[in-house]
């Protein structure tokens, strides 16, 4: 019922993971796998394109918080791009818009 798709791009060192669909308790494990794979693949920052991320809840936030910790230890960062209003609101109410870099 819920589902998510991933699409991974690496142009000249800029690593972008595009997430489509819904991240919930069912799809969060795969989300974690994909994000971790992307973190290992490259050495620079990670960009997550959320333009087609229709839904996310605390299970997705948990994955992102874990990933950010790992990245920060290595002096790297995570950029979240093109969030839809409902996903942006989730970051705002939890105060995580202060911890993550949200673009556009």
């Amino acid at each position: 019922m819920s589902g998510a798709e991933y699409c991974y791009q690496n142009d000249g060192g800029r690593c972008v993971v595009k997430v489509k669909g819904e991240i919930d308790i069912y799809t969060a494990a795969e989300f974690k796998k994909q994000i971790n794979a992307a973190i290992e693949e490259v050495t620079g920052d990670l960009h997550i394109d959320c333009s087609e991320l229709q839904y996310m809840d605390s299970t997705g936030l948990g994955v992102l918080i874990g990933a950010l910790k790992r990245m920060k230890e290595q002096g790297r960062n995570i950029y979240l791009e093109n969030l839809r209003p409902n996903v942006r609101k989730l970051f705002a109410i939890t105060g995580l818009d202060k911890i993550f870099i949200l673009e556009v």
Partner: protein
Amino acid sequence: MSLAGSMEKEEKINGCEDRVVLVLPNKPEYVSLARLAASGIAGRMGFDVETVEDIKLAVAEACTNAIKHGCCKEDSEYRIEFGVGEKCLTISIADRGCGMDKKDLCQPDLQNPREGGLGLFIINTLMDRVEFETAPNTGFTITMKKYLGV
């Protein structure tokens, strides 16, 4: 007729509301059904798009907790009850899991985020009223309300 019969023993949350009950297996793949039902009901009641999203999220957080913490018995189920009033949607989500001691509940530390601990905080922020009933080994019931046009 035993299944249908058992409906009669149940009391409604509130006599003048319509009631919709959804019982789901405690498996992650069914949480999206709870969101579908929540958005169908809330949309029809006339909540705006943003509020429908808030209600979906709050329901999903409570379902996630029912699955994560309410899983003492394998092959168990949890129950979502929607009370559809004219001006208010009441949603109650009940599991028969481990429950908890209310005094063990701590506020999330947003300066120092952990990978968990946000679910109840999100529900409290998005809904107009939230209550929960629990004790160790008796399960957990969270009841949340959203008022129309407030």
